[in-house]
């Protein structure tokens, strides 16, 4: 299986290299340092979300509620500061809310044994609904003077490189460390590869699954804070957008099989680069919205077909609520 995984990664990398080459030759203004930074900056938040999704997908799950975790806790921070609370207190509340949310997700999936697809579909709606009815006054939560200084998380540059790219890099390092250097990371791979075998060998699989969803929610919240800082507001309605599909696209395109146990941070980075290059090139070419959707759809379809061709489903890897 290992040989196949590298194949998938290689194919996507080849696609990326080809796209990059073609754009560099034929698109004036594509291959400039400035545009490269813009390209990365535009997909940084998507990349961070991809990392969050990768953790659960490697553990043979999926988290559809990720966008709710992106929108609601950071929205709560902005709303609380707007209502006169201090920034640290607001951040702490948001983090606690995120952890609670991750625990609910994890409990439902690990202990109540609800398939992750359905559990997170429901909890995502729940959290977004809670935000809309109880937490926010308006869909778009505006920046307020109490937040001043915090926008540096998503705006401006450090050493000439936009901050959001740094944030993506930091998230990459943290997740890579977690997955590759800690015992918990090894457990996640083991559970993703074969949950029953993992349990038999004595891995505490239920607590580890809960941990996965808590970490994913926290990374989602972090991505939301970077996004809010970057656009000076939190458009909480983003929950209703198709962003979640873009995140899955990044993960699958990068070569992390949906059947779990494979892939890592590098795959997310490659997936993000492919999407970033595509979006940037299409924006420079001024392709119409419908055309962009068509191209994105075809690429996702190709990626999913390649995935099921290289990582075929069988009785061992099939799971309830598989997508």
């Amino acid at each position, binding site marked *: 299986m290992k040989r196949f995984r590298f194949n998938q990664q290689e194919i996507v990398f080849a696609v990326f290299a080809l796209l990059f080459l073609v754009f560099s030759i034929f698109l004036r203004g594509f291959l*400039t340092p400035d545009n490269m930074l813009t390209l990365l900056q*535009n997909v940084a938040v998507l990349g961070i979300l991809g990392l969050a999704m990768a953790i659960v997908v490697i553990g043979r799950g999926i988290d559809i509620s990720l966008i709710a975790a992106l929108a609601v806790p950071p929205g709560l921070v902005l709303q609380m500061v707007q209502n006169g609370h201090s920034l640290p207190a607001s951040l702490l509340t948001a983090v606690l809310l995120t952890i609670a949310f991750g625990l609910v997700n994890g409990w439902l999936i690990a202990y109540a044994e609800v398939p992750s697809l359905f559990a997170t579909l429901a909890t995502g709606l729940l959290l977004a609904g809670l935000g809309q009815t109880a937490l926010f006054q308006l869909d778009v939560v*505006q920046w307020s003077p109490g937040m001043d200084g915090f926008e540096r998380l998503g*705006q401006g540059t450090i050493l000439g490189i936009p901050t959001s790219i740094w944030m993506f890099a930091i998230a990459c390092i943290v997740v890579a460390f977690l997955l590759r250097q800690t015992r918990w990371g090894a457990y996640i791979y083991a559970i993703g590869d074969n949950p029953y075998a993992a349990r038999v060998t004595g891995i505490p699989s239920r607590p580890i699954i809960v941990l996965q969803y808590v970490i994913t929610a926290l990374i989602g919240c972090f991505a939301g804070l970077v996004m809010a800082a970057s656009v000076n507001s939190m458009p909480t309605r983003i929950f209703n957008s198709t962003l979640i599909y873009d995140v899955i696209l990044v993960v699958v395109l990068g070569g992390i099989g949906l059947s779990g146990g494979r892939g890592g941070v590098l795959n997310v980075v490659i997936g993000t680069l492919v999407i970033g290059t595509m*979006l940037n090139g299409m*924006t420079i070419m001024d392709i*119409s919205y419908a055309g962009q959707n068509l191209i994105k759809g075809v690429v996702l379809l190709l990626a999913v077909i390649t995935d099921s061709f290289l990582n075929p489903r069988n009785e061992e890897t099939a799971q309830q609520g598989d997508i």
Partner: protein
Amino acid sequence: MKHFGNPTKAIVAALGLAAMTAPALAQQGLDEPFQKPFKEALAGKTVAYVPVAMNFDLTEGWYAGLKKELEPFGVKFVIRDANWNTNAGAQAVTSLISEKPAVMVVHNPDVQTYAKLLQRAENEGIYVIQINMGSAYRSSAFVGANWVEIGERQTEGVVKACEGKSNKIAIIQGALSAAASAYTLKGVENVLAKHPEIKVVSSQAADWDAAKAKAITQTVLKQNPDLCGIVGFWDGMDIGTAAAVKEAGLIGKVFVATSGGGERKGACELVKSGAFDLNMSYDVPTQAAQMAGTIKWLLSSGIKPGSVKGSEYTTLIPITKENADSQMACWNLSDLKK
């Protein structure tokens, strides 16, 4: 007392006094004949409100404004939130037709979906008022912005700012399916047809999404650092557009025009900070007041629903640095709700 020694004089004085006091004594009050039927026409009536979604400045503002104007007259105000779901909205309108409110205030998601339903509603005896986004069916009243005019005036602002500069502009559209976006684009085209020197380097849809608008604007600015103006289609989305301009260090060099409901945080404060150079506001409280006025007029007139049809296009307020500080240019949702 010497004065009153003359009886004639005393009588005249007494008569004069009587003449002055008589009307006051005789006053029984005069009934204004039209206020009672007016009150009766309004009391206990139901007004149903179907916005595309609650929780954003426009729909919350209309809701607060209508409630404030109508509830004191005993009008029952019900709300059916479609929450960005066109199907849910159509269902809400359908069920309202059988519930028979006196008036329906409808915010269309597009031109076609509700058109037939609204016609049916008026045939069933329900007045229909459409707000900001009209449908293909012309009902008793339309209260709202003229999107074509918004597009024209924004573009005129951008074209003027571009004089003597690169003449390169970008357009950040909303969602392609939204008629408001398409109408605004028509307005943009109308002005551009008169100005062949202007070159549109990018015209993309950002789906009303600030993050997408920012990404597009960043890429466009990197390709065209000499861009002189951007026409954005909604201030809630163009926060992202403005953030990209700010990050590129081009505030003041790139003229950002946008439009919205004029809520203070989303409009005036962003104009003051330099994020937007022009925000065409369709002043939501005024729209709400006009809607309420129309409802009062329709209910008290007793005319048959659908027998008169008219429009009240909103007078736009261009918010610029000059008036962003004034109390009247923008409004606060929290104050409107009080």
